[in-house]
């Protein structure tokens, strides 16, 4: 096995010095690998805000279907739909669906990682760790090409 490039600590000392380890991860922003069984099993400790930055932007491709006095929002890649009689209602519903999906996904990751849903993990983790406003922004609501400022009323 290659020498780990991320600071690594064995399980027993990590357990004994958990407070110091957490200080390093949280206050010094140092990710730590915790290793046991001679490196056969490892886990990564990282501050959630740092992980969010590492994950980068994950914009969801959302489509809006208007018909019959209803708005349906789609994330076809994930098979998620948000329903509403207005766009705002559908947005709230879709955000709720994403939260339920993220909860479901991380509750049983092995079930999803072995399917075509495996590549949803990073986006869902990004969504799950984000604040509510950031979660909304992942829907691409503000994804508008810059235009000259004009009056907003028609």
């Amino acid at each position, binding site marked *: 096995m290659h020498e780990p490039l991320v600071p690594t600590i064995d399980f027993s000392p990590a357990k004994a010095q958990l407070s110091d380890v957490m200080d390093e991860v949280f206050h010094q922003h140092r990710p730590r690998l915790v290793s046991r069984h001679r490196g056969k099993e490892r886990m990564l400790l990282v501050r959630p805000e740092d992980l969010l930055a590492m994950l980068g932007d994950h914009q969801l*491709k*959302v*489509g*809006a*279907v*208007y*018909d*019959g*006095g*209803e*708005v*349906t*929002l*789609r994330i*076809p890649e994930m*098979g*998620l*739909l948000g*329903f509403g009689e*207005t*766009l705002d209602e559908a*947005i709230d519903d879709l955000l*709720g*669906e994403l939260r*339920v*999906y993220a*909860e*479901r996904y991380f509750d049983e990751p092995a*079930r*999803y990682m*072995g*399917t*075509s*849903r495996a590549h949803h993990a990073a986006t869902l983790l990004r969504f799950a760790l984000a604040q509510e406003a950031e979660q909304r922004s992942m*829907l*691409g*609501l*503000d*994804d*508008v090409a810059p*235009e*000259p*400022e*004009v*009056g*907003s*009323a*028609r």
Partner: protein
Amino acid sequence: MRTPTWDEVREFLQHDRWTSDRRRSTDHDYFTKTLPDGEILITKISRSTQKTMSPGRFKAILSDQLRVGEAQFWEVLRTKTSAARPAPAPEPEPASLPLWLAHELERCGVTPTEIEKLDEPRAKALLAEIRSRPPG
């Protein structure tokens, strides 16, 4: 396009052997189905049992969640047997606009009824036209 009540969608799930999920929202129940290749399908059903839905919403449910065509959906209800997958005639995706575009049009005062009539090129052209108007 004939659209089903939520009760009929629930009946479809029963014949198509979906599993009820412990997760529930205030007005919906969730169901999952694992296909033979391991693929996981997820859908949700409104508890407004007799309420129906718009054609666009039905198409989205068929194409994105149930993964069957419209005819196949009604065939499952008629024969009370599960659907074949991959679907012989998958439901085409419903016409949709990118969310940012729909949101921006609404922000500019375009009504949902007007947006409903627009495809993406026309929606973009309308937004550009609105933006090119002089302020005030």
